[in-house]
């Protein structure tokens, strides 16, 4: 099967699997999910092939969030010490939120009075270390504790799909359901509004997730 796909060279939107040969490395540059082995480009992930000029990359069918500085993320407080909160941002490692970057002034030892375990926050990635540990901040416009609405999860790469065409699909969803929707780069979505609207948006997001999984050769099933 891999032979058939490579007969005419790699094609945009074709589904590839790990180990699939994508042609000679002279023709393209390796992007996300592609490596060079013995002068050949090789897919390392199961996903949709994207060719952007000379860069060939893979948009995975399923992915986990990898934090990058300045990403807007929705996190849950998972633990705390006297001056630090540990935030689950959906990445392999929890992020830390130092008291100095917290939502409000708090005295040493009173972290739980400001943000308690289990609470949700809208924050931004300030720094990512080499070891993949990250620091988040709540200092900035719109960054706050989430007190109402519902938080839903989709695959992080689908956030890009949602934001495509100038947020068109997101805007339609907001208008149709009279809801406030905030998408975070870690795949979490905050939906606030009337309960019927929230349920409707959650159903729409669920459908998007299922459709992305039903991708077939050359496009959406």
């Amino acid at each position, binding site marked *: 099967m891999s032979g058939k796909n490579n007969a005419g060279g790699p094609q945009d939107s074709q589904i590839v699997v*790990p180990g699939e040969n994508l042609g000679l490395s002279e023709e393209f540059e390796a992007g996300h999910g592609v*490596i060079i082995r013995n002068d050949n480009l090789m897919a390392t992930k199961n996903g949709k092939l994207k060719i952007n000029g000379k860069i060939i990359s893979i948009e995975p069918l399923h*992915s986990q969030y990898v934090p990058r500085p300045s990403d807007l993320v929705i996190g849950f407080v998972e633990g705390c010490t006297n001056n630090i909160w540990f935030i689950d941002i959906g990445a392999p490692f929890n992020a830390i939120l130092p008291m100095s970057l917290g939502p409000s002034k708090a005295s040493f030892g009173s972290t739980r009075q400001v943000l308690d375990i289990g609470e949700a926050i809208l924050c931004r990635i300030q720094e990512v270390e080499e070891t993949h540990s990250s620091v988040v901040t709540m200092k900035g416009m719109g960054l706050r504790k989430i007190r109402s609405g519902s938080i839903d999860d989709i695959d992080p790469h689908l956030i890009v799909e949602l934001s495509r065409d100038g947020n068109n699909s997101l805007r339609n969803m907001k208008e149709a359901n009279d809801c406030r929707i905030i998408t975070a780069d870690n795949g979490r979505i905050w939906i606030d509004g009337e309960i019927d609207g929230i349920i409707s948006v959650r159903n729409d997001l669920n459908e998007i997730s299922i459709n992305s999984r039903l991708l077939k050769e050359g496009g959406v099933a």
Partner: protein
Amino acid sequence: MGGYGDIKMIDENGLRMDGRSATDVRPITIETGVVPVADGSCRMTWGTNDVIVAVYGPMEAHPRKIQRQDRAVLDVRYNMAPFSTTDRIRPGFNRRSREISKVTADALASVVLLEMYPRSKIRVEIEVICAEAGTRCVGLTAASVALADAGIPMTDMVVSVASGKINDVVVCDLNKEEDNYGEADLPMGVLPNTGEIVFLQMDGDLSPEQFQTAWDYNVNAAMEVHKIMIEALKNGGAK
């Protein structure tokens, strides 16, 4: 009388008890995304074998002493359900499941790009629902598909097939009777794109010629199984 070799498991025409020829593989089906809460999953049936694999992670490795500063660790757990065989299996880890978990992790570590996730852990849970013969091969193959489904970067997918010897004839993909009463068993893990071997075990005696035949059968069968794996990953399921 009695003993191994007395039971006739292959006829004069080279047909086995289940009607397969020496090189035939049992029917295979693969379905991906069967465990919605997992990051990647796969259900694979191979003959009567039925295996479900779920992959979680990369996640923070706990306890901290298992963390590697330069790469992720693969935490593979192979388990047979108590009802998976005619004799009830005592639940929990035993010596056999520990051994299979280890060899599976070693085989997968040769293809997964672990260095991309330092200090992390990738958890692979292999659950055998129904066992006939060759569950370690099915578990390893299904784990490769589940890892790919989870979006874990890999250089290739491991395909595992076992060949063996029955009535002094080398045959591919042993069934239960052939496995129980046969004279040898050679499970192998093959990387289809390069032909490299990442897993090999042998039970019983094979002459050099028989070993070479079993090796060839395994490699050829692995190429066929690899096509089914690709189809499953591209379409969400394959037969």
